[in-house]
């Protein structure tokens, strides 16, 4: 803002203060008024309420996998074979784009529970495909191993492990 010269001699400070105070308050008021319009796009209360999913593990045979829905997303529940576990543990961490030991990705080694969404651009990877015996994303060609770790392709991170706990030997609660 430019001020005119006659006003500059007397009252310039008072005027400046009024401009800044009025402008500042106006900006804060505008931001406060805009906020609800931005915030309404975030997840609503009913969406947030669907935040946990319980899964009965009984009946998921060794070597098979089920997909359950948690927060609208697919979650893979994989009953891993001994061979799967061995392959997952027997990996040099230095070879991994996103190094993480298999032990950090499971509570019980035979149960691998992870969000079935490719960390590249959100497609659902296919099980039993790809070069590492785990999953393969058909959209842009990311390969995941038997621990769901990214091994090859454009995805930057391992498949996400959701927060979950064992309620008893055969039941888990995701979320």
């Amino acid at each position, binding site marked *: 803002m430019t001020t005119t010269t006659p006003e500059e001699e007397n009252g310039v400070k008072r005027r400046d203060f009024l401009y800044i105070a009025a402008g500042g308050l106006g900006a804060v008021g505008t931001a406060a008024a805009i906020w609800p319009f*931005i915030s309404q*796009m*975030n*997840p*609503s209360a009913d*969406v947030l309420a669907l935040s946990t999913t319980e899964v009965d593990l009984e009946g998921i045979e060794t070597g098979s996998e089920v*997909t359950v*829905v948690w*927060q*609208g*997303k*697919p979650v893979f529940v994989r009953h891993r074979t001994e061979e799967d576990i061995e392959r997952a543990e027997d990996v040099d961490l230095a070879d991994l784009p996103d190094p993480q030991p298999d032990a950090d990705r499971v509570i019980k080694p035979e149960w691998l529970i992870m969000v*079935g969404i490719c960390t*590249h*651009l*959100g*497609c*659902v990877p*296919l099980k039993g495909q790809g070069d590492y015996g785990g999953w393969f*994303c*058909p*959209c*842009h*060609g990311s390969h995941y191993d038997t621990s769901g770790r990214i091994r090859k*392709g*454009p*995805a*930057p991170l391992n498949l996400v492990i959701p927060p979950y706990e064992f309620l008893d030997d055969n039941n888990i609660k995701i979320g």
Partner: protein
Amino acid sequence: MSFEPKNPVVKWVEDRLPITGMLHHALYEYPTPKNLSYWWTFGSLAGVMLVVQIVTGIVLAMHYTPHVDMAFTSVEHIMRDVNYGWLLRYMHANGASMFFIVVYLHIFRGMYYGSYKAPRELLWWLGLVIFLLMMATAFMGYVLPWGQMSFWGATVITNLFGAIPVVGDSIVTWLWGGFAVDNPTLNRFFSLHYLLPFVIVGIVILHIWALHTNGSNNPTGVELKDKQDSIPFHPYYTVKDLYGLAIFLIFFSAFLFYAPNYMGHPDNYIPANPLVTPAHIVPEWYFLPFYAILRAVPDKLGGVLLMFGAIAVLFALPWLDKSRIRSARFRPIYKQLFWVFVLDCILLTYIGGKPAEGAYIIWGRIATVYYFVHILILLPLVGLFEKPKPLPASISEDVLSKKPASEEAANA
């Protein structure tokens, strides 16, 4: 040439709101270069397509239901039950492709004839803003039928924003209104898909305003010098544009009536399933060059940045092109580079539609690199080293130096 209405009612209105005079000036007496070729028809065709999309879109919205459980069925209801619903929907779906075809030709026209150069930089920018808004609108529109391609297209494209460091995930959740693409996403996309075309109308008005401020460019790239160089827009170009429109509508109708799903994808006739990704997902054809650039980079953030960068560099074109000659007709080297660039864009479109494997990856990378090399390196260098052909003194001189047949036509 000022507007003086004879009708007393028009005069009464004109004295209070000079809108008739403004339209008269813009669509009737607007002095237009007399040598415009049919490449200049695509601007008005784009305007026609915008109107077609808005009119068909408004009536489709009368029958469509933006809910995950009903969207797909309501589109089938439009196709099977609503009177002429099949026609209106196919018009709208193919109309989007037609809109992009004419806009891409319009953009290439601007690049060939240097229409973006001073004093038309803002005109060029406004055009690019329209292009960006068109892409956003088309993307959200494609989500509405809630088929498999709709759902997974929405998932992949919104996930692009997840590549932003730190706040990416929060932004994606905010865009979705949940933790995955779901009903809130569909609802807001419908709302915005309805809104954005009207924003485009606003920018189009600015685009035309900027165009009429400095006048149209022309195939010589030489500015209007005197009255001999121009003819009034009406009837000369209204008729020429109408003829172009008639030919274009035949082309449009060929797709509309004989191959309405040619540019679509069969997977979008399968209802959306959030648990199964189709084996081969591709965006609509008009996004393929940018999709190819995205996939050319083996890094998530890098791919996203390069894809947006491919459009961002177009904004810098008026300053990257160092040549003061507008038209490629007088730029022997640029003319060839232009056609190589067109071929490169076609190659990117082709690669974008192929799976990311084997030789397609290599070619995708070569084509991506060339896209940026052309704009960022070749364009500035050619302008500095190229020896242009002599420019005609005026549009009239250029027109009159042509063979007698065209001379007669020009004098008629």
